[in-house]
């Protein structure tokens, strides 16, 4: 079981800090904590909220049913009181007018004022909430220390203590053993994966919801030897990443869909010049500026076919924080191994959701170079001139992969060329060479396909209904399958794709024939995964659960829509 706290208020009221402190306190109390953010695209005012679910076991989805509503303003009560579970309560300042019987009014604002700093009212709420949840104040000092300026630490502790004394315990939830786990968002996990991969250069232009990656890397730039460069635009960002990668460092760029548009041409440059590149697209609802701070999975078809012409690429959709870390490491590896662009597809839901995660495996191996990426090439062919000295940047090889050298090599020259070129990298107009070069590049996909990861199967392979999803819907689908197990044991399973282009089709082709119903579940309007599956395998889904209002499907919502729209059919 799990409890669910909603902290609601206006932008600028500090709900983000309040939530961060609470998440940490709960984890220190041993809970598994899963917190999702619903923010407007504004800096002050409006209505924002954070949902914090916690309990003794793993949690993989948010839920709209809440147990504690912490309302920092009146609007939060009005908007969310109806979501309260039976035994739920509303914690709010005494100034907030509500006759809801579940309301617990405390003096947040006045206490803070009396303490001499109106901004500590959040700590009053935290203290009170801990008591209401039957928890203690043991970790309050060390936790607050990480979130408030040291000059205000004592005051905040006092505020929490006073809040604690204002109420009596109401709910209690058994704890787990997650004290030593990480609290990490999708963006942070991705950035950590990049650090573990020895990324040395990250260029980007600020864009929600991807900016967190840049900020996290910048914070640790000096210590970890990465240059984080804010580019003048996204075109510069990706061309910078390519320029850096060309010299031999691992390089990356990140953005959201609108910025990705501006990177498209250089994606093709990565393809034809065979310069390894990792690009992250943290999706948000489009088209255009769309809904900047919300979530969607609608860039799949776009990133799969972005850029003129044809070249090998790989697209990996991140499914959770663990995946974000591991797949980022894999992205660097594969980009380097195949000298191709690898696109990491994340989304706002995953990027901004913090979850309790087992500390990541961190070894030197993620930073090690691929075999084709070395500076000690044997001088196999005779040197015919300074330029053609036996090493060929685009040598035609059986698997299409050519070893790389970097500028500064004592014997060879590194060359990159966006025009069609011969093995040396010189412009060519020869139809034969063009044909060979296209084949060489596309051939890399043959080998790449052999190391694709099949989608994760949740539930029994012998299900009646097989849900097909991708990316950040894995968590909600996992919860949905667990919920369905109760009423329909073994009937509904889910297949969730991480590697998504090229699409690994083995598992799908094995399971699809025996399932009665194939239902794709996606955060978009056109069913992009379904169309990709049809294109790749000829398999058609029978129906779909689509959501494209900028809010993520929860496990519960998937279940109810499945029952409402699909199963009754």
């Amino acid at each position, binding site marked *: 079981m799990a409890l669910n706290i909603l902290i609601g208020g206006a932008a600028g009221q500090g709900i983000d800090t309040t939530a961060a402190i609470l998440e940490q306190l709960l984890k220190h109390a041993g809970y598994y904590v899963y917190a999702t953010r619903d923010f407007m695209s504004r800096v002050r005012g409006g209505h924002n909220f954070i949902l914090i679910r916690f309990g003794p076991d793993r949690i993989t989805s948010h839920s709209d049913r809440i147990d504690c509503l912490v309302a920092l303003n009146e609007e939060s009560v009005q908007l969310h009181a109806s979501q309260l579970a039976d035994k739920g309560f509303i914690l709010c300042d005494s100034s907030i007018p509500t006759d809801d019987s579940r309301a617990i009014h405390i003096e947040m604002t006045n206490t803070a004022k009396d303490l001499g700093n109106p901004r500590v009212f959040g700590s009053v709420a935290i203290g009170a909430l801990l008591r209401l949840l039957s928890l203690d104040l043991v970790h309050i000092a060390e936790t607050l220390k990480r979130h408030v300026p040291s000059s205000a630490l004592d005051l905040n502790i006092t505020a929490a203590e006073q809040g604690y004394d204002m109420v009596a315990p109401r709910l209690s939830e058994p704890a787990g053993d997650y004290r030593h786990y990480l609290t990490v968002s999708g963006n942070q996990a991705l950035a*950590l994966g990049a*650090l573990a991969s020895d990324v040395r250069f990250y260029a980007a232009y600020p864009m929600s919801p991807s900016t967190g990656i840049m900020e996290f890397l910048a914070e640790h730039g000096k210590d970890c*030897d990465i240059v984080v460069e804010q580019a003048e635009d996204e075109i510069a960002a990706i061309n910078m990443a390519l320029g850096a990668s060309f010299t031999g460092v691992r*390089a990356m760029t990140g953005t959201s869909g609108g910025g990705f548009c501006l990177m498209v041409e250089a994606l093709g440059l990565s393809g034809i010049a065979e310069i390894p590149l990792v690009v992250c697209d943290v999706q948000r609802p489009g088209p255009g500026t769309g809904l900047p701070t919300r979530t969607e999975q609608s860039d799949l078809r776009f990133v799969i076919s972005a850029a003129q012409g044809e070249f090998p690429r790989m697209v990996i959709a991140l499914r959770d924080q663990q995946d974000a870390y591991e797949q980022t490491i894999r992205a660097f590896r594969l980009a380097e191994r195949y000298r191709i662009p690898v696109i990491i597809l994340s989304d706002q839901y995953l990027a901004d959701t913090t979850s309790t995660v087992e500390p990541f495996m961190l070894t030197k191996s993620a930073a090690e170079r691929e075999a084709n990426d070395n500076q000690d090439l044997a001088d196999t062919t005779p040197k015919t001139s300074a330029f053609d000295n036996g090493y060929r940047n685009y040598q035609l090889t059986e698997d299409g992969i050519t070893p790389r050298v970097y500028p500064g090599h004592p014997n060879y020259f590194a060359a990159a*060329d966006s025009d069609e070129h011969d093995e040396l990298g010189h412009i060519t107009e020869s139809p034969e060479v063009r044909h060979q070069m296209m084949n060489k590049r596309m051939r890399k996909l043959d080998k790449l396909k052999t190391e694709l990861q099949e989608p994760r199967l949740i539930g029994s392979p012998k299900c009646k209904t097989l849900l097909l999803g991708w990316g950040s819907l894995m968590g909600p689908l996992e919860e949905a399958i667990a919920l369905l197990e109760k009423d329909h044991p073994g009937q509904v399973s889910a297949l969730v794709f991480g590697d998504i282009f090229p699409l690994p089709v083995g598992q799908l082709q094995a399971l699809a024939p025996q399932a009665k119903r194939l239902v794709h579940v996606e955060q978009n309007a056109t069913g992009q995964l379904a169309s990709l599956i049809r294109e790749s395998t000829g398999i058609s889904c029978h129906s779909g659960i689509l959501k494209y209002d900028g809010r993520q499907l929860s496990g519960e919502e998937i279940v109810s829509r499945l029952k409402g729209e699909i199963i009754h059919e």
Partner: protein
Amino acid sequence: MSEKSSDKSTTNNDISTATFETFETAWCPGCGDHIILTCLKRALTELGKNPHDVLIVAGIGQAAKTPQYISANAFCGLHGRALPAAVAAKIANEDLTVVVNSGDGDSYGEGGNHFIHNIRRNVDIAHFVHDNQIYGLTKGQASPTSQTGHVTGVQVNGNINIPLNPMLLALAMGAGFVARGFTGDPEQLVALMKQAILFKGYALLDILQPCVSFNKINTFTDYKSRVTPLPDNYDRSDLNLALKTAQIFDDKIPTGILYSVEKPTYHAQQAALADGKSLVKRPFKLSAVKNVMEKLV
């Protein structure tokens, strides 16, 4: 010319212009690009550069084919996008001598945003703009520097845009080294190239380069009659003088170094580069990454 210059080589590195080799070019006979290529090889030779430590970066265009014709590391990127790739390469490996050779359309038109913002970064690279006041490769449309009234296949009634003044623009953006050369004066050009490469920070060298095929107005003869080298006593450190001098582009076109004042470079200021070792040569810091992760517990 390349024969002569190899004699001049002042280095003990056994490097001659021949080291940078000669390839068959696809340029028109008589094009100024040939002279620029020759001068580039001379400049690199006279500076004693080892070709393996030189990276020539370009966008797309006639000028941008330069990296194809020289024995050095070569990055032929996208139209307009030479600068971001070049500065990032230098950031990642400061041991490289990074030179951008590209056209006026590439550098100031499609690449205009990178031009202004990379001046602000002040990364230590040299930027040689082959300025023929026209789009050569696409067969003769107006470039940002085309003169007013220039008639082309697109500007059928003559160019009506205010011509972009690269000298003034670079100065306004805070560039530390701003110079103009001309293919009709290769001795001066080689000297300017060398100084631009030696300058610590971003150095702009705009080179008047006649396009014999598509610019019938700004010909060799036209430039020759207008070009006026700056006097020896010209004060390169006076910004206001430079701003005034930069405005001159009529029957006189000043050539030489209009402005040269070193400012803190990107490398000198970027915290992650503080220890002075090239990024690409540093070992992986596992423990630093461990520390980062542990902060999230």
